[in-house]
Structure formats: structure tokens, C-alpha cells
């Protein structure tokens, strides 16, 4: 390499920011992709994108880590308002209603694929995943990307110590409470039960599994005028049980969001609830034998638990004034690529998220992935064990992030002993309804 080349290279670098992004990188069309997964999972996203870029020579996806899910979403919205949004934004599942209400700002996946001449049959995707991101006509609005479900984590050594069976794990809340009492009595673990994501596990999953709406209007799928349904008896029953278990010392609250799970891999909690994507962490940190199984149900309410709901995020295609058909085409190609069975299977195995497609699940099973990794299919079984009903297909509630926090706050007040279950649910219901009405007013066009 002589000096001239170096000079040319340097001037090219300097000029790069001033050239429109879409013509950079040797004539490939550039696609901007903002994501919000950090750490090991973020590395997997980068790898996924590298695989796509290597698979063809027409498009180049540029993946950038933009902070937490909240930061990606607010950042993408701010960028859209300023006229420079990324092509693809990874938005967490609670942001779905806000994105879906954004009309001109988004390009629905079914439209995008139709324009690109790509056919992806919605039936290929896991029911629980597809339903969450589809409109009322069953058309996919965003592209499923990383989905998980909450599962129960059991410390088998603590169970052994307490003299409980490690093959017949408890399946109902009554059995779990009995097991927790035994663990406490025998002092087999410091904490009998803890949980991550209190609202997601104890309210959202609970409502879906028991086929009771968290809100009216099919959890908001049928209109912005939905109302919160925390007055339903199942919520009072479950909250009362949690408060009683806290008083007797069998349930220990460990904080908001994911905080409550820290005690499980540390070996302090005998049972805990968390996303199935917590698997990598448990595998790395837990120094004891453990199992992950489907979430429990209330045996006196139902014998046939319904499907659970997903967590995680999906990909949203954002619009911009001078975005070309070629750019949208590139986004569509990326979506097709990540839905391929081989790619999907790889993603499922390395991340612990559930596969997007049924085919990838079948292929993993045929390969014996679940016999080698027992419990890795707990979330998939939970998501697909029943055909989703209007009450269990997911949530389409405006301001859902805020509603989740409201329920969390009121639950904390209950656990502090400031209010009983009925007052707690009444307050949460009232405050959450205000959020829904504000969202309805702001988004009525």
C-alpha cells in the first residue's frame, strides 16, 4: 500500500459521514437496525445481522445497540419525529399498542412483505407469538424477533433437602404453597419463593393461563375503549394468596422488574419465576441441580390451563419521507432471512428465546435438543399448549408500560401492609383506567 492509497482512504473516511448512508458500502443498500439487547444476547443480535450480510450482496444491515428497550423505543420515536428514523426498531412487547396506534409512522409487516413479493404464511409462526403482533384480521403488523415466556425455576437440591420429590414437581399453586411451607419448615432454602417481573408473572401470565381478561375488549385488541378488569375474582384470590404467603414467610418480594430473580442462581431461593431467556444466566451461575417447568395454575379454577403470553420484543418497520422501495425491500429480505428454519433454529439454541416458527421447534426436537437440554422447551409448551382465546392472545393496551408499573407499585403497597388485596386491586384498576382513557384521547383521530 503506498502513500496515495492511504491518503485516499483517509479522505474517504472523512467524507463518509457526508455521503447519504444508502450509497455507502460498495453499492449495497444500507438498512439501519436499532436494538436494545445488551451483553451476551446483544452479541447474538450482531451475529444474526452478520449472517444476513454474508448471505447476500444486495443489502447491508447496520445493527446498533441503543441502550435498553425503553431507550430504543423513545429514541426511535424521537428520530421519527425528527425525520431520521432507523429502518428497523426492536420494540418490547409492552410497547406494541403504542406502535400499532402510530398509523403513518409504521409499515405493517404484511404490507411490507406483500410489496416485496415475499410470502410468509402467518401459520408458520408459533400461535402465541403470532397472535401478540397481529391485527384483528390476523395479519402480522410487526415481525416476531425474540420471544420468551415466563417459566418456573426449581432448585432441585433444596427440594431434596426438604424431602420433596424432584421428579414430580408441583403443578398447581396449592401444591407450590405446600412445598414452600415444607421448605420453610425444614429450612432447606433461605427463600422458598421469589419472582422476577411481578406484574408480568403474577397478573399477565395468570390472566392468560386462566383465560380471564386483564382488560375488556379482548385485552384491548378490539378497541381503544378497553377497561381494566382487575375486579375479576381470580386476581383477588391470587393477590390474597401472595399476601398471605408473604406473611407466613413463604414468598419473599425481591424488587421490581428482573431484580427478584437474583436470589435463584445464587442458590438462595428454592423456587422462582422468570423469563425463559434467563436460562443462559442460570446455566452459567447456578452451582446446583435445577429445572425449568411451565408456570403453575390454580387447580380449583381450571384443570386445563391455557397458553401463557410472551415477553420479549418484535421488529417494527418505520417510515420516512424519502425512503425508497429498495430500502423496504431490504427490510423484507432481512425478515425472510431470520424466519428461515436454519436461522431460527440457530437463534433459539444460542439465545434461549423460543423459536419463531413451528418448523424450527420440530427440527430442534428431531435433533434431540430438548433431551440434551431438559426444560428448554417449557416456554414453547406453555405458549402452544392451547389455541389462544381473546383473553389469552396477548395485550394491546395503550400505556402498558405505565400500567405494569402501577400494578407493581400497588402490589408493593399491599406487601408493605398498607392495603389489603381488594383495595390494592381497586386502586390499580382505577389508576390504570386513567392511563387507558388518556391514551384513548391522545390517539383518537
Amino acid at each position: 500500500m503506498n502513500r496515495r492509497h492511504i491518503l485516499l482512504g483517509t479522505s474517504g473516511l472523512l467524507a463518509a459521514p457526508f455521503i447519504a448512508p444508502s450509497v455507502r458500502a460498495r453499492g449495497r443498500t444500507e438498512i439501519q437496525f436499532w436494538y436494545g439487547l445488551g451483553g451476551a444476547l446483544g452479541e447474538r443480535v450482531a451475529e444474526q445481522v452478520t449472517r444476513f450480510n454474508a448471505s447476500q450482496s444486495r443489502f447491508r444491515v447496520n445493527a446498533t445497540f441503543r441502550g435498553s428497550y425503553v431507550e430504543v423505543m423513545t429514541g426511535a420515536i424521537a428520530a421519527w419525529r425528527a425525520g431520521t428514523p432507523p429502518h428497523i426498531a426492536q420494540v418490547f412487547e409492552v410497547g406494541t399498542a403504542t406502535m400499532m396506534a402510530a398509523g403513518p409512522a409504521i409499515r405493517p409487516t404484511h404490507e411490507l412483505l406483500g410489496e416485496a413479493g415475499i410470502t410468509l404464511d402467518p401459520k408458520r409462526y408459533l400461535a402465541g407469538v403470532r397472535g401478540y403482533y397481529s391485527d384483528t384480521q390476523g395479519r402480522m403488523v410487526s415481525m416476531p424477533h425474540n420471544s420468551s415466556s415466563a417459566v418456573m425455576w426449581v432448585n432441585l437440591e433444596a427440594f431434596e433437602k426438604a424431602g420433596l420429590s424432584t421428579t414430580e414437581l408441583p403443578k398447581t399453586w396449592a401444591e407450590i404453597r405446600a412445598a414452600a411451607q415444607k421448605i420453610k419448615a425444614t429450612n432447606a432454602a433461605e427463600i422458598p419463593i421469589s419472582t422476577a417481573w411481578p406484574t408480568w408473572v403474577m397478573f399477565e401470565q395468570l390472566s392468560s393461563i386462566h383465560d380471564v381478561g386483564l382488560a375488556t375488549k379482548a385485552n384491548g385488541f378490539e378497541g381503544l375503549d378497553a377497561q381494566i378488569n382487575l375486579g375479576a375474582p381470580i386476581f383477588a384470590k391470587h393477590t390474597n394468596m401472595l399476601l398471605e404467603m408473604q406473611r407466613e414467610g413463604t414468598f419473599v418480594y425481591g424488587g421490581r422488574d428482573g431484580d427478584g430473580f437474583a436470589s435463584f442462581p445464587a442458590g438462595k431461593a428454592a423456587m422462582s419465576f422468570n423469563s425463559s431467556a434467563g436460562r443462559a444466566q442460570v446455566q452459567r451461575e447456578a452451582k446446583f441441580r435445577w429445572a425449568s417447568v411451565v408456570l403453575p395454575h390454580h387447580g380449583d379454577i381450571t384443570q386445563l390451563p391455557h397458553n401463557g403470553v410472551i415477553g420479549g420484543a418484535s421488529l417494527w418497520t418505520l417510515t420516512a419521507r424519502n425512503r425508497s422501495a429498495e430500502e423496504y425491500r431490504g427490510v423484507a429480505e432481512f425478515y425472510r432471512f431470520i424466519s428461515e428454519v436454519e436461522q431460527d433454529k440457530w437463534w433459539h439454541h444460542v439465545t434461549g428465546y423460543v423459536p419463531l416458527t413451528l418448523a424450527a421447534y420440530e427440527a430442534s426436537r428431531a435433533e434431540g435438543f430438548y433431551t440434551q437440554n431438559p426444560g428448554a422447551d417449557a416456554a414453547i409448551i406453555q405458549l402452544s399448549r392451547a389455541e389462544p382465546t381473546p383473553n389469552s392472545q396477548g395485550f394491546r393496551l395503550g400505556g402498558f408500560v405505565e400500567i405494569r408499573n402501577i400494578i407493581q407499585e400497588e402490589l408493593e403497597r399491599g406487601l408493605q401492609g398498607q392495603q389489603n388485596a381488594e383495595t390494592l386491586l381497586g386502586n390499580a384498576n382505577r389508576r390504570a383506567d386513567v392511563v387507558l382513557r388518556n391514551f384513548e384521547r391522545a390517539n383518537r383521530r
Partner: protein
Amino acid sequence: MQRKAIFNNKLLPYLLLAPQLVITFVFFFWPAGEALWYSFIRQDAFGISKQFVWFENFTDLFADPLYHQVILNTVIFSAAVTALAMSFALGFAVLADRHIRGKDGYRTLLIWPYAVAPAIAAILYIFLFHPDIGLIGRALKAAGIAWNYTLNGKQAMFVVVLAAAWKQVSYNFLFFLAGLQSIPRSVLEAAAIDGASPLHRFRTVIFPLLSPTTFFLLVINITYAFFDTFGIIDALTKGGPGNATQTLIYRAYIDGRVNLDLGSSSAQSVVLMIAVMALTLVQFRFIDRKVHY
């Protein structure tokens, strides 16, 4: 005497002022004006539909009993952080001002916490006070105290106040030390010769002479507690349990960035703007008079 200005060009002064004015306008007046405008509007997250609602964002805000609690939280939090950070800093400064061996070492070490990022400071306090993994937290539990700041609002407030004050002690220490060193030795020696005890000297000579520093720090500390403690609260308690540690700035952040309710968040920013203007006015109008410069 020549009274004529050296520059008689009328444009030049404006030209020279322009960079400063542009910066002030772009970075201060424009965002503040935008916040004021948004506080009268109800809009969706993307700004696709906007509706002028007059003072509705404000009336909604003040009708919310939780907002009253947030105001009370902020007052308690700011007063506690300011009092704690300033009194400890003054104590340390008085001690470090003595003629002791290795005082440079002490001074340097006392400045360290200031360089710690708020989020890291919060993590340190989690490792100290968390009921399950914290050193002090577990000791408290072992001693039979029902310690769990993730559920006990008062304990949570105590921990965030402690963390926020700890971070500010260094800054206050620096200024108090500089203030102490600028007090003429002769004055102190004269007082000592007159038979004033060290405590008496501190009360009647040092403290009054330190009053400009104290006043300056009071303003800085209240502003710090109001605006710069966001990181500590976010990493330690996220405003919980319930709303026990939610302050005005934290709630404005949550409503604007997490809940995407720009109208309410802007209204809260306007309330904060007015509060700070009032606070500054009160401080300079009333407290300033009692300070000896």
C-alpha cells in the same frame, strides 16, 4: 478625558455577543419554550395527533394525590440530602484543616467520591444495604431488624438520601476547606489570645466568616438534590417501593420517557422551572441579606 467609545460601529457589539446569544437561545430558550408549548398540548407519542387543551395537563397533575406525595418526597429528600452533605463536609473540612500528619492524603481521599458516577455510587450502596446481598443490610437483618428497603418506603428513602449525600460531601468539603483556609490566621489567633475556646471560636468567628461559602453551597446542594440525583434513584429504587422515593425530576422522566406522556411530563417540567425560579429568588432576596461577605 475621552468619553467616546473606542468602537463606534453599532453592529460590532451584537456580532461579538452573537455566539453566546445563539448558544443561550438554542440550548436554553428553545427547549424551555418547547416544554412550555407542549405542556398545553395533549399528543400521542409520535406527535401525529395534537390537541390544544389549555391547562388540562396541569389540573390533571395537581388533582393526582400521588403528585402531592411526590412533592412531599422531594422536599424531604432535598432537605435531608442538603443537611447531611453539608454538615458532614463541614466537619471533615474542619478536621482536615488542622495541622495533622498526612493531611494531603486525607484530603485527596475525601475528594474521591465526587469522581464516582451516580449509577456506580448506587451499585455500591446496593452492595452495602441490599437485604440479601448487602454487607450492612445482612448485618441489620442478623441483628433482628426487619431491614428491606425494597419494601419499606422509609428505609428506601434513608438509603437514597445517604447515597446522594455521600456523593455530594466531597464537593462541599472542597469548598469548605478553601473557605477555612482563606480565614486570616491573625483573627483566630486574636480570638485565642482573648481566651475563646475552640468551640466558641468556631461559632463566633469561623462560621460567620464561612457564611458566603455556606450560602453558595446551600444553593448548589438544593439544586443538586432536585436535579442531579436521578441516576442514584433510578439505579437504587426506581422510585419505589410504591412511590416512596419518587421525586419531581424522576417522575417527569418516567412520564416523559418511559410512559411517553409528553403533555404531562412537560407540565411537570414547567412546574419544576417555576419552583427553581422561586427558590433562587427566595434565597437571594432573603438569605443573602443575612450573609456576611
